[in-house]
């Protein structure tokens, strides 16, 4: 029973992390129709920045907030200087540029941070809480709490603020949104800020959770994220989130309870391939 609870917690954590990346990808795709693979680079960057800030300031909160803001701004810069000039081009141009960026980022982290895994150990998060008969590690609790906060914030911004409204409108119909007098380029910039910030949050969380930050950490998740937005259905945020949790559940339970010899990436991709065969528009996508 304890094992099951622990696994469920793992699923929620993993699913949230996937969702954080995938939602950013879905938003980007919705508005600009670009597959922003480099998002994973920002995710890894978030991990590195968070580690660096924690080691210099000693405060986890500061590290988290700092990393989120820095990466958010990086995201905005990428949009402004790299993606925006590519908008009139065929879409593969942006995709290749994004892949190039991801490669750059990975190598940059390798050069700056060293090719080995770095440890991200937060002293204050050692130990666990006791709730009745359950034992939840402090780390898990912190991550769960953080996830809730982030998703609540995201939901709030998207649903309840003018900015969020503009972003959602732009994702549905860019041209009309412009005609309505909304400054789309500003909304797009903010949207990149938001998705990058969320990705950075995910990066920090993952670093803490697995106690490891390494240059390639973006790679695995980059392509999973793409798979997730396709599985969820292009243009459907809810679908993407659902897909994230489903995938997390599949991964956790498959690796724990079965001995299928596929790597975790392969599981995601297999899921993707099978789903497309059956339902090409994704779970909640439009046909």
């Amino acid at each position, binding site marked *: 029973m304890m094992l099951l609870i622990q696994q469920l917690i793992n699923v929620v954590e993993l699913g949230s992390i996937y969702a954080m990346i995938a939602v950013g990808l879905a938003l980007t*795709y919705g508005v600009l*129709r670009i*597959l922003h693979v480099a998002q994973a680079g920002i995710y890894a960057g978030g991990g590195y920045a968070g580690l660096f800030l924690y080691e210099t300031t000693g405060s986890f909160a500061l590290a988290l907030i700092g990393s989120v803001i820095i990466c958010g701004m990086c995201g905005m810069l990428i949009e402004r200087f*790299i993606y925006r*000039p*590519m908008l009139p*081009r*065929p*879409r*593969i*141009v*942006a*995709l*290749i*540029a994004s*892949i*190039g*960026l*991801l*490669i*750059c*980022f*990975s*190598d*940059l982290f*390798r*050069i700056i941070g060293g090719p080995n895994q770095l440890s991200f150990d937060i002293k204050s998060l050692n130990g666990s809480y006791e709730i009745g008969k359950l034992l939840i590690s402090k780390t898990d609790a912190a991550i769960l709490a953080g996830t809730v906060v982030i998703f609540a914030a995201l939901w709030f911004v998207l649903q309840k603020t003018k900015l969020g409204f503009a972003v959602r409108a732009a994702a549905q119909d860019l041209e009309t949104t412009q005609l309505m007098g909304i400054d789309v380029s500003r909304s797009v910039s903010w949207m990149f800020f938001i998705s990058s910030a969320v990705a950075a949050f995910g990066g920090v969380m993952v670093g803490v959770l697995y106690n490891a930050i390494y240059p390639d950490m973006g790679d695995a998740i980059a*392509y999973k994220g*793409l*798979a997730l*937005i*396709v599985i969820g259905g*292009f243009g459907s945020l809810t679908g993407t989130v659902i897909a994230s949790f489903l995938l997390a559940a599949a991964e956790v339970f498959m690796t724990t309870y079965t001995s299928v*010899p*596929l*790597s975790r*990436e*392969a599981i*995601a*991709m*297999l899921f*993707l*391939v099978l789903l*497309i*065969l059956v339902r*090409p*528009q*994704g779970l909640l996508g439009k046909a």
Partner: protein
Amino acid sequence: MGIWSVAALGLNVITGYAGQFNLGIGVYMGTGAYATAILTTQAGVNFWLALPCALLISAAMGFLTGLPALRVREDALAVFTIGLVFVFESLLIYLPYFGGPVGIGRIPYVGINGSQLSKEGYLALVLVALGAVVAATIYLRRAWMGLAWASIRENELATNTIGIHSARFKLYAFTIGATFAGLAGVLYAHFIHYVTPYDFGFLPSIYILVMIVFGGLGTIRGAIFGACFLTLMPELFRFIQDYRNLIYGAMLVGLMLFEPNGVLGDESYVWRLILSAQQRLNEWLNRVSKSRRAYSISAAATNEIRHKTPNSIKPASRKILETRNLTRRFGGLVAVNDVNLEVFSQEILGIIGPNGAGKTTFFNLLSGTIPCTSGEIRLNSEPIHRLSPHLIAQRGIGRTFQIVRPFSQLSVLDNVLAGISARYCKGFADSLRQYRNSSDQDEAHLILEQTGLLAHKNEVSRNLPLGLLRRLEIARALGLRPNLILLDESFSGLSHRESQSLIDLVRMLRENGATIMLIEHNMQVTMKICDRIAVLNYGNKIAEGMPEDIRNHPTVIAAYLGSAHHA
């Protein structure tokens, strides 16, 4: 280097020519490589026998992966192929038969008549293979197959409405491209003598994609140049080995920003330099040789073609098209509601109605571009509402689009030839015929003459003004000699003079035996040219009859109240 060129050319067929973004080319290369590896090491098969087997298996792999790829949208296709290559790599690692992560080793050298091929000999073999692939690619590009691919790449929707079955040609592209890549895999295996799953995974696939984009997407020279340059580069930049990936990534980004067509692509700085130098050379040469013969159609050929067109006069009351209870819903919105319409042979029928009345949706239903929710459509009493657009086009319905969809990078002549091609591409063998031979050209030229586009035949259609583009769409639709032509707002945006000459064209088409339905907002044109008019509003047919009756019809006037166009 040659090996990578072959692989790059394979991807070029799929992505460059047919426009299908395949990010997992490693799958096909790996199939070829592993096939030959297993055959030669474990089954002890001779290389020359293993080679064709491996090629067949690669082709089959291309076909099999192409089938599901047909069902996904453009962006999803890229992700789907990424998924494929990851799964492929994992299967190679974990299924025991393939040797696991260590791969298969001790792949034998290639031998002829018992003696082993030297390094130079192997290079020769690779070059021969490369030459064969290049020749095949050029041949394909000049065949109807290549034209079909170009059409699909430019505008898949329009391609289907001129009778080309896009799915079939996409499958051809996948299969052929996979075969080339498989060949590359085979050559690789016998060169390195060792294959591992990681050789054919996602990163190598991306490298190959980068090769063709770097060199110039869709061009043979680009694929080869890209392959060579990117294979040589690590050697040239050995001194910055440590920063290799960083520079590589930065190069990708920079290239996309500044020269997205690739170094040798059609619009790139480098290529244009080369072309202008070539042009100056040509001019110099021309001054010392005779000028070329201008193309002209012989009178005999013209007569022959005219005799082949359908007879002009048919009984006027013959029904050519009929819709019964035709309905189309989009979720809660009913775009076309229970429409019953009859269209008679050789009449010009106008379809009018306020914006959003469902007129274009109606045309989309007729041409098969979207399926109907209920009801039926009968063409010459045969039901067509369940058919795919290319089949409907082949049965004699041609159409134009509200927002023009020409094959923009192709010339005017090529656009029209594409329109004709469906008649000649009945089978695989047919589509391999070269399309620049004389009889097909004659017919295209006749159509160009009829539509007044002959003077522009070699211009790239992207550069044409709107009036000519609309004529081009009509010319392209005429390729299959349709009995029913659907014109969707062909007169919008035209000057008075352009409209007048288009009216003449439409009347001429009718005289040659076609029936015309047109959607129009321009009331002057509609009243002038139509025999009968049907009016749609909110998806319902609210009136039908002669122009004068419609003009004074109270319901119609009420529907249009407030619109800028009054009858």
